[in-house]
């Protein structure tokens, strides 16, 4: 297995690791969003979905651990590459300028680290129930202990939480907007005809994910989705 470690340690191996883990994480956020959009279908639908997942404990844990591994690999590799990049330019330019690099591409480290903080908070919030125990308690109090609808709507009814979640979606948008097209390039997908479309698609996909997430939070806040009694 040393060959795999050697591959990971190389510059391009690191990039490819970022691309593959990034792709998996993107797949997860899409699935996560699609699941959560059931919030609009009412409590029964989304609670049934939650129950469906929890009834498959074995699979759920495999998925969770897998996701954790991918996530950790993405973060660790990203930090390793970023440190290498900093070391590669010991002296900054007295006058710096940018010709065509997008803001999103230049802020990947910042957006990535911000997302790390957000994900930790998100887990503490909804998975471990540590930041808002009252909301978390509503989940357990509901039908079969899976009243996700009650927990989520209670949380997003709090303006600060809803706005923070929605705000973080801007960061997610930036990260995905560059990340998706970047991973295609890193995996060697480059084509004179299709690459511009990949670039456009990555904006659309990023907008879909980040917009969908934000919509959920803001819909509860605005009362479009009714808060569970």
């Amino acid at each position, binding site marked *: 297995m040393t060959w795999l470690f050697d*591959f990971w340690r190389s510059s391009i191996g690191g990039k490819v690791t970022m691309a593959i883990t990034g792709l998996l994480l993107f797949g997860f956020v899409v699935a996560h969003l699609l699941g959560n959009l059931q919030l609009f279908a009412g409590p029964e639908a989304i609670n049934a979905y939650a129950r469906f997942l929890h009834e498959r404990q074995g699979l759920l844990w495999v998925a969770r651990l897998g996701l954790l591994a991918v996530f950790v690999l993405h973060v660790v590799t990203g930090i390793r590459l970023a440190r*290498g990049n900093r070391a*590669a*330019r010991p002296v900054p*330019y007295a*006058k710096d*300028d940018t*010709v065509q690099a997008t803001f999103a591409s230049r802020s990947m480290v910042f957006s990535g680290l911000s997302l790390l903080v957000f994900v930790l908070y998100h887990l503490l919030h909804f998975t471990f129930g540590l930041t808002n125990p009252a909301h978390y308690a509503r989940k357990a109090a509901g039908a079969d202990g899976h009243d996700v609808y009650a927990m989520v709507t209670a949380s997003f009814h709090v303006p600060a939480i809803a706005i923070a979640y929605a705000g973080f979606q801007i960061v997610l948008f930036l990260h995905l907007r560059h990340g998706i097209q970047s991973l295609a390039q890193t995996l060697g997908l480059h084509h004179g005809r299709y690459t511009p479309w990949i670039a456009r698609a990555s904006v659309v996909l990023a907008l879909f994910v980040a917009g969908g997430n934000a919509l959920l939070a803001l819909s509860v806040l605005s009362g479009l989705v009714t808060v569970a009694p």
Partner: protein
Amino acid sequence: MKVVLHVWRQQRRSTKQDFVQDGRMVRYELDHVSPDMSFLEMLDVLNEQLIRKGEDPVAFDHDCREGICGSCGVVIDGVPHGPERGTTACQLHMRSFRDGAEIWVEPWRAAAFPVVRDLVVDRSAFDRVVQAGAFVSVNTGAPQDANAIPVPKAAADRAFDAATCIGCGACVAACKNASAMLFVGAKVSHFLHLPQGRVERERRARNLVAAMDAEGFGNCTNQNECEAVCPKEIPVRVIAELNREFVRARLIEEPVGKKRVGGDG
């Protein structure tokens, strides 16, 4: 016209411990600049003035002054080779600046390119990367007739697009991560599209990336800043090709010389 220059002056060579040495930006005012001068001719005028005043002239690399040798290269107002696309500093003319402009002139900034003096940097890292495998292993002698292997025109053109790299290092200087992947990608792409070069593709991809990594360049994050400043406008396509070739060489191709599993022995 008149310009105000801020030029990086550094007398002693950068070391790993002290990259900056006594370096600093120094301000110079320059009068009677003709818009028809090239940027380097403007620096010539500055140097003639400095020598007459008994000061040390600004050291900068240059040679052919027609945009092909790749010697010259300074960062002008934060952009390698200055504001004109597809143009080296020697072919950049002062008519690209307005009268009275303040212009910042700095050397390439990268750990792999230590400053030798003022605006002169050491780009031997590029040579070492090439020495690791950017060639076809063919000795001088009697290869087959040049027309023995037809090469599709499109392939030859693609190879040429990459081979046109002048090795100036602007890609590294522009990259926010000081990555050399446009340069290395150009080498890989040049040989990838030619049947003569394909023979050694795995070895080349492996060795070039290893050599590049050993030099301390950064990692590409696909910001495409390199492509924007490349005086030969080499596309980032070559980086995708480099990535593909490296993955192919390291993960897909089966290693040779190992015992076969489940063989007939």
